[in-house]
């Protein structure tokens, strides 16, 4: 406060000095004692009001950027000042009282605005033009790590996950238990072995027992390690590693989504980066970019290739935020990554088989009644919220625990979570899909 007063004096000393001068002048120039008393009193009031006004201005200037919640205090000070002026200066009384009242209203509204929860829209993610083709293997590998884990050096961080969402199911470190999908450590060497497996049927796709024989008609099978990796990404169900198929399918269908399709939609450049990282991180020489790109072109028809704008939303103030709730429903679920594991009726591309079907309007009430349920939810919406924020609170029968990420609480905004819960709660068996508006 003392500091504030000091700054007010520093700012307004000429005016205050002038008023003091005026006070002295009145002492010398007015002979009528009654008039002199009145003039002196009014000048003193003027000095007080001017001082108050300068304190208010100093407070406004100091806190404009720093603590805007204190700004209404300035408006209140000016309100007091104007009312005091209105009381003691009859000539401008109406003007001052009106002004004071307006300051009071504005201060109240400003105060109300500052009292409400403060939400700031972050900076937009900067658009980074990525030219994968001209990158060195190291650069390409770094980009690949970012796509898989969300950042360079994040591959050893527990729970780190990027746009590709691979760690949701795959393990990447040697010896890591990987129950839902094969551990990808050593894949550059293992790929060649896979080609030799009897179920693979190299160059004879028609002989495969899988639901989908080829990536598209006439694409054929992989003939080398890189093509095997590309085929696995573009057509996961063309060959399913033993024990990793959809439950009950006898390894004829893979639960993995096609990586170039929604919800993941990686471009060929991005997939080349991912593949390069898998080679380089094991100290192996990766194939050239063009070789990798050609391997993908073999299994992804031109019409299905995601637009390779070469632009990527990198970082940004959103930080590790997945979605903020402003997205349309399809995009919201996609950005949160749910379709990779769950089937969600009505959501485009949400045909994941790793997690349970999210028919939550029907499921949630039954789960709450389940004697095995130990959570705190009392309503379907509370149950869904709990399942997202704390997936281990109740694990659906036949599905393993600790598979779903537990950090959605910090990676989704309240608005996004609320929107997802609203939608899921409306999904009921035998009933039409809820509107996506």
């Amino acid at each position, binding site marked *: 406060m003392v500091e504030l007063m000091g700054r007010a004096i520093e700012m307004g000393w000429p005016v205050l000095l002038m008023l003091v001068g005026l006070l002295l002048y009145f002492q010398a120039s007015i002979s009528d004692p009654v008039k002199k008393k009145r003039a002196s009193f009014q000048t003193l009031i003027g000095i007080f009001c001017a001082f108050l006004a300068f304190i208010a201005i100093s407070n406004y200037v100091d806190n404009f950027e720093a603590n805007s919640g204190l700004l209404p205090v300035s408006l209140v000070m000016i309100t007091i000042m104007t009312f005091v002026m209105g009381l003691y200066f009859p000539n401008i009384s109406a003007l001052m009282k009106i002004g004071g009242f*307006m300051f009071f209203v504005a201060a109240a*509204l400003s105060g109300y*605005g500052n009292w409400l929860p403060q939400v700031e829209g972050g900076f937009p993610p900067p658009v980074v033009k990525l030219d994968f083709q001209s990158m060195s293997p190291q650069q390409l590998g770094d980009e690949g790590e970012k796509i898989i884990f969300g950042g360079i050096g994040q591959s050893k961080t527990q729970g780190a996950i990027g746009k590709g969402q691979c760690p949701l199911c795959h393990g990447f470190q040697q010896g890591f238990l990987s129950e839902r999908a094969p551990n990808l450590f050593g894949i550059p060497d293992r790929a060649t072995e896979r080609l030799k497996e009897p179920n693979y049927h190299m160059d004879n796709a028609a002989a495969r027992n899988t639901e989908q024989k080829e990536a598209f008609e006439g694409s054929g099978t992989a003939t080398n390690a890189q093509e095997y990796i590309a085929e696995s990404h573009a057509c996961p169900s063309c060959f399913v590693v033993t024990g990793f198929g959809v439950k009950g399918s006898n390894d004829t269908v893979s639960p993995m989504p096609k990586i170039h399709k929604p919800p993941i939609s990686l471009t060929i450049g991005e997939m080349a980066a991912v593949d390069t990282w898998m080679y380089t991180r094991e100290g192996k020489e990766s194939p050239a970019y063009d070789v990798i790109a050609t391997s993908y072109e073999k299994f992804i028809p031109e019409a299905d290739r995601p637009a390779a704008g070469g632009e990527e939303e990198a970082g940004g103030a959103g930080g590790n935020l997945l979605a903020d709730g402003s997205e349309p429903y399809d995009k919201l679920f996609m950005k949160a990554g749910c379709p990779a594991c769950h089937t969600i009726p009505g959501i485009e591309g949400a045909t994941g088989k790793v997690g349970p079907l999210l028919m939550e309007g029907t499921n949630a009430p039954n789960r709450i009644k389940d004697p095995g349920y130990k959570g705190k939810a009392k309503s379907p919406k*509370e149950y869904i919220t709990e399942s997202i*924020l704390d997936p281990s609170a109740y694990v659906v029968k036949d599905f393993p625990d600790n598979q779903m990420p537990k950090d959605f*609480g910090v990676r989704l*905004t309240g608005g996004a979570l609320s929107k997802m819960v609203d939608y899921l709660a409306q999904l009921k068996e035998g009933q039409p899909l809820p509107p996506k508006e």
Partner: protein
Amino acid sequence: MGRLFNQMTRGKKKLFAVSALMVMSGLLLLPIFLSVSAVASGGGAPAGGPPADVVAAQKAGEEGEAEKVEMGRDIYYKTEGPVIGEGAPVTADNETFYPRYNFESRVLLWVANQQHLYYGSFVLAVPIFCMCIEFAGMVSKDKAMAKKYDQLAYDFIKISLTAYSLTAILGGILIFTFLTLYPAFFGYLSSIFRPVMHIYALTFVAESATLYIYYYGWDKMREGVLKWVHLSMSVILNVIGTVLMFLANSWIAFMMSPAGVDEQGRYLGNIWHVIHTALWNPLNVHRILGNMAFGGGVVAAYAAYRFLSSKTDEERAHYDWMGYIAMSLGVAFLIPLPFAGYWLMREVYAYRQQMGITLMGGLLAWLFIIQATMIGILFLTTNYYLWQALGRMTGGERFQKYIKYLVFILVVGLLVFITPHTIVMSPAELKAMGGQQHPVLGNYGVMSAKNGGINAIIMTTILSFIWYQRGNRVPTVSWAKFGNIFMGCFFVIAQLNNVWLACYGYFIPANVRIGLSVPQVAGTLSCLLLMTPLNLAMLKNGRQLGPIRWGQIPPRSQYAIIMLATAFTWMMGLMGYIRSSVRLFWHVNEVMRDNSPWAYTHTIGFAANVISFNVLFFWISIMFVFWLGTLGAKKVPVPSPAGQPVPSPQSATGH
């Protein structure tokens, strides 16, 4: 000039006046017509032909002197057109694209823009009031009232004239701010709107010329046919003003929902597409109504200021009456404003759903809670003023004892109205609360209940107004008793229906609940559209209990007017901020990205502070304008006739 008119015969006068009006109108509108025909053709080319640039490009193509004309696809209309000009510049965070002072450029531009908008709205709204009031005076059979109306219209335009020059100055400041701080952005917009920029300038000249003739010709064109000529000029003035505003709106509409350009922002030769974007018309309607409500608020505040500083009873009576009419006009235009707002929002959702969600359910949703609170405040204040105004009528005291019940309904209605059901929260808050709804408040605040709250408030306001109309009159029609019982039953049933539906909403699913708003609003509108005319019919030739004692109203009533005016101004700033910030990090939505250091959205508190600053800056400056107005030659206000009956409120000017 005046003598010349006096020497003419009445017939010649009439002919001269009509001819003069036609010539003047023609001259003023000629540049606009010429320009519009040029616009229709794409700028500069003869009417009906293709745009000049297109013609040139085609010629060049035909002669083989240029390469093949590149065609682009309109991002909104999906039509093909020749690419003319450069694409939207890709900016970067540096001094070339964003020169800056040691302060946030966006806030500087925000302030400059808002101040220009406040003044622009005011000077465009006031001539519309003048037109209505002057017309009311001319058709009034009561000469004393006619003079009063004429004096009032003159007072209005006098205030507007002083503000007019300030509007132009602020417009200049705005352009300089734009050019200095956002040269690339402004350069791009100018290049897109190049074909109509000169029309904007010409319209401004035409507006100024008409306004000055209208104002300075007031005394010369006081009587007879010349008075009709004078009134016609106000019509021309308003037509020009409206065109001017529509052109200004086209810029902001383009920024929100661009059209007439391809994906790279390159102009495709059809300026009508650029102007007539998805949100242009809803914005136009919303702004006209908003300007009127705002203009009414400013003039009412002026009247309140003059009332509070009046020295004589005559002055007080005049300004009390002036404040009442201005406030009534403001509130009258406030009532349809939400409907225009709904239309605008519907179009926003239709254009980009994501934009709508950001507004209503995302980042900007809290601002709508402030808006809801302000709407409640506006209605409460309006009621308070009407109750105070009852005090200046003999017979008004009959209703005073019931006011406490209205206060109860209003307060309960407001509390229900502003209680949120689901709110935007951080994940931490969500976890702390254990769900998306508050354990206690989450049981309340569903849509039907909120609708019930606001409808109860509006119905109560209608009842207050009906009581005000009856203040000093008693119906004497033969069916008065039946009419009173019918009205009473109607209000009770409408209110019960409203409350019942509000409660019923808790027992049905959300998607069914939404439909309850229709019968709720229908009840309120029925009260407004059936009961108000019924009341007037009952009061026709009613018994007078005494005069309206204009000027004999407590000063606190004037503070209610000032509260309304300040709240209008604040709400205008708030809604303008919401409209502008919904573009998030785009200068021109999805066409030109904002890469300045200020491309993020501020917190609500910061926005509220800047809005308050803008509001106070405007009021301080306009107070100065008011003060300047009092320095000029003072026209002696026409004394309020003693025993003046309450004029019928059917006309726009009410009392």
